[in-house]
């Protein structure tokens, strides 16, 4: 369902909807009138495009020449591939099964003919040997004006059109009609533009005799990293994930994987991270009788922009790289989710107004709320808020005395209340009275010994039966 102009129109339908008589392009109101219990979802063209690309990758097992035919088709060149799968009919069956979607498959001597047969052919006419000339003229995919003109002229099928002289068709219906017609008939070429898979970045080393010393193996790995760095430099890429596979002489394999926050190419940096990973392995690498081969692969790469090292910016860039490398190292040693930064969230509950994200993730410039008119926030937040026993004036007076962790505190100064309501829009019945959740009244208080606390009353008197107080933060 998409929005076209002012109306919501149907963009894509499944088989049952087609059976009910709905067509693509019909407005939602008409469709609902025909079929009251219609289920709809907003159209997502980007997800469709991604899905089509994924499908193209899957079709690669049948032929290396796969091209996209947006928005919902694929073109496969199977010349020379059919006999590997047991004939063309068997190939078509396997393609259908592999695609996983209900699909129309058309076979033809050239790309445009196959496409036309798939989209506009009927039933068994789609197979090999189907006659293109029996297809309707809509298969030419012309504009509506040219199509209407063709119909008015009484030309229904492509065969009718093919019998007329080309010059006349060009004069009356445009040059595009002629070009498409010739492509379908096979007189003009319609080449495919296949998507080529990116070559993976790999480097291997095999030894004539097994190597048992770990230091020598590390040297070899450093050499492989240099080779991979050359490949990546040629393509302006940097690696985010590196995989080292050590193959022992008795066949056992050991994999070491490292991930980085930013794409890197430098072999020395990756070696440092690799040494950290080896130090933190649960069971150390056992060479046995020696390693026969070492394989290095870089499965995840990203574009790496070479920074221009200017004179004044050089030191700053060097410092930034140092910090990024430090974060990577610490992440590998103690875990990536233990090295974090604070990021703001656009919510007004204090515990939800920020969250901790792994420091290795690239983050956009955060904007913190430093509103002067709002009461100040404490330096330390208690997570979860600690329950305290409070004596306070009813109904909304500040605390007079409170007990926390067995100690009694007398309140000397207090400011408040700052009312923070619950997020009613996040609850199922939040818009109904009473379903929104408890409002909090925050107070900034100072006790007799000079310590400042941030406390809130959970719930309002008169609305809730039991009112509890919680300590949420500590001020300096």
């Amino acid at each position, binding site marked *: 369902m998409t929005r076209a102009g002012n109306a919501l129109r149907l963009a894509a339908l499944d088989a049952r909807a087609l059976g009910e008589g709905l067509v693509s392009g019909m407005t939602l109101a008409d469709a609902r009138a025909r079929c009251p219990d219609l289920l709809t979802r907003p159209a997502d063209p980007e997800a469709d495009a991604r899905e089509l690309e994924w499908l193209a990758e899957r079709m690669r097992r049948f032929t290396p020449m796969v091209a996209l035919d947006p928005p919902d088709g694929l073109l496969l060149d199977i010349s020379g591939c059919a006999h590997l799968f047991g004939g063309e009919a068997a190939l078509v069956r396997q393609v259908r099964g592999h695609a996983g979607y209900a699909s129309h498959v058309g076979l033809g001597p050239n790309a445009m003919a196959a496409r036309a047969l798939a989209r506009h052919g009927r039933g068994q006419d789609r197979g090999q040997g189907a006659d293109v000339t029996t297809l309707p003229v809509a298969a030419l995919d012309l504009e509506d004006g040219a199509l209407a003109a063709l119909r008015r002229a009484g030309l229904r099928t492509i065969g009718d059109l093919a019998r007329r002289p080309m010059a006349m068709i060009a004069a009356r219906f445009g040059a595009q009609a002629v070009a498409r017609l010739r492509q379908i008939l096979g007189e003009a070429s319609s080449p495919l533009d296949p998507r080529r898979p990116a070559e993976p970045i790999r480097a291997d080393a095999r030894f004539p005799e097994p190597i048992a010393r770990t230091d020598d193996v590390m040297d070899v790995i450093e050499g492989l990293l240099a080779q991979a760095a050359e490949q990546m430099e040629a393509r302006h890429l940097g690696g985010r994930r590196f995989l080292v596979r050590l193959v022992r002489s008795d066949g056992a394999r050991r994999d070491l994987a490292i991930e980085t926050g930013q794409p890197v190419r430098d072999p020395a940096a990756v070696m440092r991270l690799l040494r950290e990973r080896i130090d933190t392995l649960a069971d150390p690498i056992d060479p046995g009788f020696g390693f026969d081969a070492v394989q290095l692969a870089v499965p995840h790469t990203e574009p790496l922009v070479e920074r221009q090292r200017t004179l004044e910016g050089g030191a700053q860039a060097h410092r930034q*790289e*140092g910090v990024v490398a430090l974060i990577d190292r610490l992440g590998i040693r103690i875990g990536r989710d233990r090295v974090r930064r604070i990021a703001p969230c656009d919510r007004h509950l204090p515990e939800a107004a920020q969250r*901790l994200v792994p420091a290795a993730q690239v983050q956009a410039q*955060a904007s913190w709320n430093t509103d002067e008119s709002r009461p*100040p926030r404490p*330096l*330390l*937040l208690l997570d979860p808020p600690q329950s305290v026993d409070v004596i306070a004036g009813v109904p909304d007076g500040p605390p007079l005395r409170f007990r926390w962790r067995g100690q009694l505190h007398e309140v000397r100064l207090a400011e408040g209340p700052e009312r923070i309501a619950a997020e009613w829009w996040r609850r199922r019945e939040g818009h109904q009275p009473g379903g929104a959740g408890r409002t909090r009244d925050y107070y900034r208080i*100072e006790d*007799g010994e000079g310590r400042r606390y941030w406390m809130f009353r959970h719930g309002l008197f008169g609305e809730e039966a039991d009112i509890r107080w919680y300590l949420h933060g500590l001020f300096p």
Partner: protein
Amino acid sequence: MDVTVPPQGGRPPGRSASPFPATPPLLEQGQLHEVHCRAQDRAAAFAFALTRGQWARDGDLFLLRVPGKSRLPFCFSGEGLALLGLEPQRLTIVEPASEIGLLRAALDAARCPGVAAVLMDSEGRFADYDLTASRRLVLAAEASRACVLLLRVEAEPRASAAQTRWSISSAPSVPLAADAPGWPAIDAQLLRRRGGPAAGPWRLIWDAEHGRFEDADRRAAMPGAVVPLPSLRTDTADGPGQRHVA
């Protein structure tokens, strides 16, 4: 100015008797500083360490703590940090699993050239922090010019190579209008200082206008202050038996 000479002839300990008390020294970069406090004054100690530390505010700050060690489950509030004049996006929180890991990570961070300040938060005895560990931290700090701060909550002071050792506690604030708690106030005492005498205690009050902690006595003494008289010698230096002029 009156200079009193005790009978033994030694130098008077503590601060010199001048009209203005010595200001609490800032936490210099390239050095290691220890801050001791009680568990309930942790927020004050953090505020002291974060604001009195000398480092470029556009550099990265690393905070290291062992999550299981603290009896109070707390985390930093970005807005609270912003109120103290720090940028929350410059802070990286590292949480190793053990105290040895904490020291190792702190050493790595202190050696990194891009790190401006390293703040460690420890609670309890912290047995792994001995003279050798502190010496390593000092060397790393001197090499990279980072400011290394160690917060020791509920701990006894131990011999270390730190430049300064402080004891921090929260102090009653000056109330604002309508009995509201005022700006943060801290009692700071310099317990030990390398190459200088111990001093304090000072009452530090947050100055919102300048965004820093100011010595309370100095603030009170500012208006109408008189420039001190230089020590006058009416006699020329002609041997012992000089008279002291007040």
